[in-house]
């Protein structure tokens, strides 16, 4: 099977190691991974902040670039929702681009969804010893309705003890531009998340979105806590 990887600008620029592990996981699953170096950002930051004109131009670019791909895998719930859910919103008054956006959205899969739903993967070869806890990223959970898939995958990893934190579905307070515009509220929400992570005693917190992870990591690091943040691919690729 051939799949195109859209790593997202955050992974590309901040977390290349996540990208490397993504490629590894996909290859282990027998997927022929393609990466278009023309890719940049899906336009979500502009879209969420209300700058739809700018978001539209990036969305158009994305559509042109990825239209020919059969399958597109995105390791982020929010970027995958941007393409699947919000591109059609952006082009709702442009029938041609709307049709193209809708066609594209059919081919987009979030990473864990791709592995579980499309490839039917149930076992993984990796090993990772220790307690981990999983944070549900909001867009992944509520725009894409992905809840079970990442848990299934994590539980399949040898040595992993998955401890659910209280209210894992609660937002971490990131919200993109929200974390800057309403930074105090954002920090207060994050604190609650951090307290709940700490209460599980896990050494690692896993999510499917590096945006949330970056936010959580920022709080953990400021408070000199040693709990690590990991994208799910990093756990699935560990040996």
């Amino acid at each position, binding site marked *: 099977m051939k799949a195109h990887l859209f*790593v997202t600008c955050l*992974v590309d*620029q901040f977390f290349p190691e996540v990208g490397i592990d993504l490629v590894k996981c996909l290859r282990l699953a027998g997927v022929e991974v393609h990466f278009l170096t023309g890719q940049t950002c899906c336009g979500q930051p502009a879209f969420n902040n209300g700058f739809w004109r700018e978001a539209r131009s990036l969305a158009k670019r994305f559509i042109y670039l990825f239209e020919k791909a059969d399958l597109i895998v995105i390791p982020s719930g929010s970027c995958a929702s941007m393409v699947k859910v919000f591109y059609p919103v952006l082009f709702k008054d442009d029938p041609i681009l709307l049709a193209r956006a809708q066609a594209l959205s059919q081919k987009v899969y979030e990473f864990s969804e791709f592995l579980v739903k499309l490839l039917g993967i149930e076992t993984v070869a990796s090993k990772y010893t220790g307690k981990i806890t999983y944070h549900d990223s*909001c867009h992944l959970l*509520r*725009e894409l309705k992905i809840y079970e898939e990442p848990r299934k995958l994590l539980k399949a990893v040898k040595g992993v003890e998955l401890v659910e934190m209280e209210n894992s579905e609660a937002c971490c307070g990131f919200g993109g531009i929200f974390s800057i515009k*309403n930074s105090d509220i954002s920090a207060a*929400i994050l604190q609650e998340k951090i307290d709940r992570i700490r209460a599980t005693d896990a050494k690692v917190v896993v999510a499917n979105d590096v945006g949330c992870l970056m936010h959580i990591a920022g709080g953990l690091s*400021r408070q000199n806590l040693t709990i690590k943040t990991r994208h799910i691919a990093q756990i699935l690729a560990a040996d």
Partner: protein
Amino acid sequence: MKNKPDNFHFQAKTALNNPSLQQALSKATTHILNKRARAIQELTDLETLRDRARRIKEQTIAQLNHYLLQLESEVRKAGGKVYWAREARDAQRYIAKLVKQKKAQLVVKGKSMVSEEIGLNEYLEKLGLEVVETDLGEYIVQLAGERPSHIIAPAIHKSREEVALLFQKKLGTNPEAEISKLTQVARERLREKFFQADIGITGANFAIAETGTIVLVENEGNIRFTTSLPPVHIVLMGIEKVIPTLADLVVFLKLLPRSATGQKLPSYVSLITGPRRDGEKDGPEELHLIILDNGRSRILSEPALRESLYCLRCGACLNICPVYQKVGGHAYGSVYAGPIGSVITPPLVGLYRARALPYASTLCGACRDICPVKINIPHMLLQLRQGLSYRWNRNLINPGYWLEKLLTITWSMGMKDEGRYRFGSKVARLLQRPFLKKQKISHLPYPFSRWTKSRDFTPLAAKPFRIWWEDNQRSSKDHERAD
């Protein structure tokens, strides 16, 4: 000073810095959410019910004129009077005329968000009337000279000690902080008011077009008193409250109390059709229904926002909202707080005045998931943000706006072309150097300082992923060749 929507950031900060408020909020929202979860679980056909409720609202609102006219004629048939108010002041004046005609001195009120919306209490007090809120929460808030901070639990922000102090100060009671005693005080004080009142004013949870029936849902009994004892009953309702038939009510009676307070049914549901009939001993002699627009038609004409009119005012979206949980209702500076408030306040008071509200959300979507009528709040907030971003003329003297615009445009230019993207990522790596200490960034210039104030920032990686990919491709090609 009254809180205003323009002041959201300041008000939010005040709330965050108030430890007793933080405690009260977290306790109360957790409690209501737990109760709701238990009550909702009992509904085996929850999704069907939600779909049905939404469909009823959709179809009614789509033919709003028809149903409002039917409601009007049925209310009249039952002996009630109907008044159509386009703006807040129309409703105010109508009530003022009525007050004058009846020589009224004392007005008792059952909880009504609409009356808050049109500032009715202040208006009537200026006319020299005594206006008494009778819902316990509202009574507390009124004594404190505040506004309700939650649709369902108006005094959610107050602890029992604060209420006891307030009662002591305003009513001269013992400063006993026992909740049952405080409740007893309210019972005694308000009982007399009910018997003396000249006019009772309530909102409406639903109005049934088919029968001209006003439906009111409550737990305390204050609404029953308000609708039974005073000789005049005034119902203030927004245009969106009408539903077609009594049969339609079932689905809402199953969803509303469960979502609002976690109850199967509240203590009292009153179905009121016209004033008292011949031979009846109590009930009002006159019933006036005021149908209020006050900006709702603006929402109606906006396809992207229309579904906000389906709201049942259950308050569930407030309880689940991570932002509301932290800042409480007063921070929003609007009668309607929380996620749904952030959607309907801008069209009601003006988008520019309420410009902070659409951004007062992480867009986490928990509000949509919990909403009994599945209102897509996050998507509407996005629409409102879009409406704001191009209002340059309103933002002429707002430097923050221009900075944001400049950053967005520069950023999107960089993202639009691979060469520029690569160049930009190199420049960014140079720029971050002075801030990088021990693989951490703990200080950044404005506006990013807002992040680093409480969180570290992840530095850009030494090499982007794409460089790795290109190297990897090259070496595997070399490999192939070598084979």
